[in-house]
């Protein structure tokens, strides 16, 4: 079982976490000059909590297995599909130019649907409406590949999501989710990623739970995966029923999580344990 490593260790996590708050602070090195780019004020990306071996994989694009997916995204970008006979490139030209900065602003309010959409969903809207092609399934190789490719065009640019105007009520829902206890362990996101950031939960060093590196290549998954997959994992770890990937609940939560990291550089495609 590749995916159940943490799950089994989390029974009684609440009590255990309370006990370990006094321990040594994070072993990350936010003062190391190599980390500078990943630290913005009090915000730190998951990179600064990662072990040196994991960081080394991300540091060199050649070593980073995410690129199997990202490169695939680049290929699909100019492949015509659907009855309109168009590719992404037919309308958007070079992704390096047209998609620069775009990924850093998602999730975003999308008026025709009257709600937020995230980058995966925005890409699928172009698939179905502009290309007349079938939508890609959430977590499919193609959707991950394209999301990674588009988001990477914002690499090193600051996360910059809007939470005002029509996005405000959805932001509030996401925020409420973040602070709501759930599951058998009765924990909220904030108990781990705010209150215990920098503490160990068994072998795991808790980070701020930032989303700036997604989609990410996770060693535990042995593949590239979405933020919603990670959220579902964090829900399951506390013995809570996860929401479906792409659900409104997770998209609203995604906006809150992204906003917490507004100003951090986009790190996609990151590598995590």
């Amino acid at each position: 079982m590749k995916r159940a490593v943490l799950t089994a260790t989390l029974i009684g996590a609440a009590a255990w976490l309370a006990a370990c708050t006094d321990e040594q602070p994070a072993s990350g090195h936010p003062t190391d000059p190599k980390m500078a780019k990943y630290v913005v004020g009090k915000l730190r990306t998951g990179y600064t909590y990662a072990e040196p071996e994991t960081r080394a994989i991300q540091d060199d694009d050649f070593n980073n297995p995410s690129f199997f997916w990202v490169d695939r995204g680049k290929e699909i970008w100019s492949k015509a599909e659907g009855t309109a006979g168009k590719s992404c490139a037919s309308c958007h030209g070079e992704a390096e130019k047209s998609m620069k900065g775009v990924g850093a602003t998602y999730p975003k309010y999308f008026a025709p649907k009257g709600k937020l959409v995230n980058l995966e969903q925005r890409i699928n809207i172009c698939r179905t409406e502009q290309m007349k092609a079938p939508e890609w399934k959430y977590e499919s190789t193609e959707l991950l590949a394209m999301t990674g490719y588009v988001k990477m065009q914002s690499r090193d640019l600051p996360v910059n999501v809007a939470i005002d105007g029509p996005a405000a009520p959805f932001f509030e829902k996401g925020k409420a989710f973040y602070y709501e206890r759930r599951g058998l362990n009765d924990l909220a996101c904030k108990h781990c990623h705010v209150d215990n950031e920098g503490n160990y939960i068994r072998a795991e060093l808790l980070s701020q739970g930032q989303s700036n590196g997604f989609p990410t290549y996770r060693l535990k998954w042995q593949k590239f995966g979405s933020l919603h997959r990670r959220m579902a994992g964090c829900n399951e770890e506390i013995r809570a029923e996860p929401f479906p990937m792409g659900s409104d609940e997770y998209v609203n939560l995604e906006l809150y999580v992204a906003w917490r990291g507004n100003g951090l550089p986009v790190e996609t495609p990151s590598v995590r344990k």
Partner: protein
Amino acid sequence: MAASAKVRVPATAKKGEVIEIKTQVQHEMESGQRKDAAGKAIPRQIINKFVCKYNGAEVFASDWHPAISANPYLSFFITATESGKIEFFWTDDKGEVTKAEAEIKVS
């Protein structure tokens, strides 16, 4: 997902120089030790052999076993002897071979 591989070979080298070669191949490396949701064993499907040829001659080879991660990365060293082609072959349990190649100029 169709297998793909990437290799990093120095474009140029001096004769006799020891050069580092880096490779990575996309493969799920199913260990054969996992079960599916119904409790049925998932058959083993891993790359079991890696070979590197330098102008047709084998210069590096290794047998692989379960417990190697998905999308394995491998680096190794060879001696640059002459200009030409360096080829890479990954063979999996189904007999499928993923190939890659690179050119090197040796002076």
